[in-house]
C-alpha cells in the first residue's frame, strides 16, 4: 500500500471502559452515524466492545474510528450536562407553559 492511501474499512472492533463512558453514549453515537456504519455492542463486565461495520468500502478506517470516538466523547459530555441541568430545564419548561391559557 502506498503512503497516504486511505485504509479501506472492513469491520473492526474498538473497546472502551465502562468506568469512563456510559452505554448510552455509544448507543447515541451509533445512531448519529447510522448513515455510515452499523454498530454491534458486546458488553462484558466493565467493558464495551463496539464492532463497527462500515456501510460502504469507501470509508477510511482511521477517519471512521476518529469520528466514532468524537461522537462518543461528545455524547458522554452531553449526557453529563443533561444530568446536571435536568431540574433547571424542567423548571423552565414548567414556567414557560404555566400561564399560557392552554391548560383548559
Amino acid at each position, binding site marked *: 500500500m502506498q503512503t497516504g492511501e486511505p485504509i479501506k474499512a472492513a469491520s473492526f472492533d474498538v473497546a472502551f471502559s465502562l468506568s469512563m463512558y456510559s452505554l448510552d453514549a455509544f448507543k447515541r453515537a451509533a445512531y448519529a452515524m447510522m448513515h455510515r456504519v452499523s454498530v454491534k455492542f458486546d458488553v462484558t463486565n466493565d467493558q464495551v466492545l463496539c464492532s463497527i461495520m462500515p456501510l460502504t468500502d469507501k470509508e477510511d478506517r482511521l477517519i471512521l474510528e476518529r469520528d466514532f470516538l468524537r461522537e462518543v466523547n461528545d455524547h458522554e*459530555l452531553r449526557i453529563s450536562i443533561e444530568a446536571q441541568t435536568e431540574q433547571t430545564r424542567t423548571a423552565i419548561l414548567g*414556567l414557560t407553559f404555566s400561564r399560557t391559557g392552554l391548560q383548559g
Partner: protein
Amino acid sequence: MSKFSPLEHFEDVLDAGYRLLPFRFIQLEGDDYVVSNMAGEFVVLDRVKLDEFAKCELTPHDPVYSELKAKHFLLDEDSSSAVDLLTVKLRTKFAPLANFTALHMFVTTLRCDHSCPYCQVSRANDDRQEFDMSRETALKSIELAFRSPSPVLKIEFQGGESLLNLDVIRFIIEEVKKRNSHENRDLQFVIATNLALLCDETIELAREHDILISTSLDGPEALHNRNRPRPGNDSYKRTIEGIHRVRRELGRDSVGALMTTTASSLSQSKAIIDEYIAQDFRGIFLRPLSPYGFAIKTKFYQAYDQSKWLDFYFEGLDYIIDLNLKGFAFTEYYAAMVLRKMLTPFQPGYVDLLSPAGTGVAAVVYNYDGDVYASDESRMLAEMGDKTFCIGNVHSNTYEEIFLNDTLLEALESSFAGSVPMCSWCAFEPHCGADPVFHHATQSDFVGKKPLSAFCNRNMSVFKGLIKRMNNNPEIRDIFERWAYM
C-alpha cells in the same frame, strides 16, 4: 457612605463559581462547536473551551464568560434573573401556538393552463370542471376556518390555477367578509396565481378587497419557460406582464413571487437572482424541490441530489451577501426566517420551521372536493395516492373530528423535535422544525431517522453555513441582524 459596593465585593461574588443552565452543542467544523440554549441563543466555542465551560472551570475573567452569562448559559451569584429571562424568551417563541391555525388555504380548482413537469399538485386539464370547488364546499370550509381561535385569518387561494375558478374566489371573499362583520378577525387574502389569466375582473376584485398576489417566477425567460410550459410557450412573458400590471394598478408591494428549483436551475443561481432584481423584487426564496406530486412521478426529484442544491443555495446566498456588502439591500428569505429563530425571540410562521410541526396547526388546506389536509404538502402527497394526512372532509366531519384526528395528533406528538432521537440533543433544535409529512413521504415514519433525512441534512447545512458566515465577518452579522428583524 458610597452608594456602590466596592469592586472586591463583585470579585468575591464571581469567585464563588457558577452552575450550568441547560444547553446543547454540536460540531460546526474542525474543533469549533455551536453551543445553544433553550431559547436558541448561541455562541461558538472551541472544544477545549467547551470542556472548560462544561466542567465549570471558566473564570469570570475569561473573555467568553461574560457572553455565556449574558446569553443565559450559566448562573452565578450575580445573575439570579437568568432562569426568568430564559422562560420569557421560550414563552415568546411558543406563544403563537395558542392562536392555532391562521393560514387557511382554499384549493379553488385543480385545473391549470400550465403543464409544469415538476408540479407538486398534479393538475387536471383546464376544461374539466369537476375539479372545481363548489359554493357548498366553500361555505362549509369557511365555517371551519372561523372555528379557529386565531385573531388573524389569512385566506389563500390555491390551485391548479386558482383564477380558473374566479367566481368561487369572489364568493368566498364576500362570505368571509360578511361573517367577519361580527367576528372581527384581522383578515388577509392572497391569490396564488401564475398570472397568465390575469384579467380586469381579477384586478378589480383585488383592489376592492386588498388582495395580495403571489406568483411563480423561476428565473430568466428560457429557464422559466422550460420549467413552466403552456400553450404558446409564453409563460414568462405573461407572468412579467402580470407583475407589472398588478404593481401599476394595485401598488408595488401587492405582488410577491416564489421560485421553484429544478435540475436546470442548479447552475443558474446568479442569473435567477439577477432576474428577481431586474423585476424589482427585494428578495428571493431559494427553495428546494419537494418530493411530492408530479415532481416524483417524472423523476424530477431524483434528478438532483441534496449536495447540488446546497451548492446552488450557498452560491446564491453568497452572491446576495456580496450585493448587500456593496450597499444593495436584497434578502434571501429562507435565511431570513432561520435567522429570525437564531437571533430573535420570535418565530417565523413558516410551517417547515415549526416544532411542534406546523402541520394542521399553522396551516390547513380545504381541497376542491371538501377534503381537509393538514398542510399543502399533505395535499400533494394525497394527489400521489397517499391520503394519510387527509384529516377529514368539510361535508362529513365536525371541526373537533378534523382537528382531533388521531393521525394528526400522533404525527404532531411523535415528531416534536424536543423529544426525538438526534433532535433532542442537537444544538440546532431551537432553530429547526419538525416535518412529519416529509418524513412519512420519504421514510414511511412520522419521526424519521435524522442521519438519513434530507430535511435534517439540508437544514443542518444551512444553519452551519449561516453561523460560519456571521461568525467570520461582523459586517455579515449586521446584514443578518437586519434580515432577522424584517
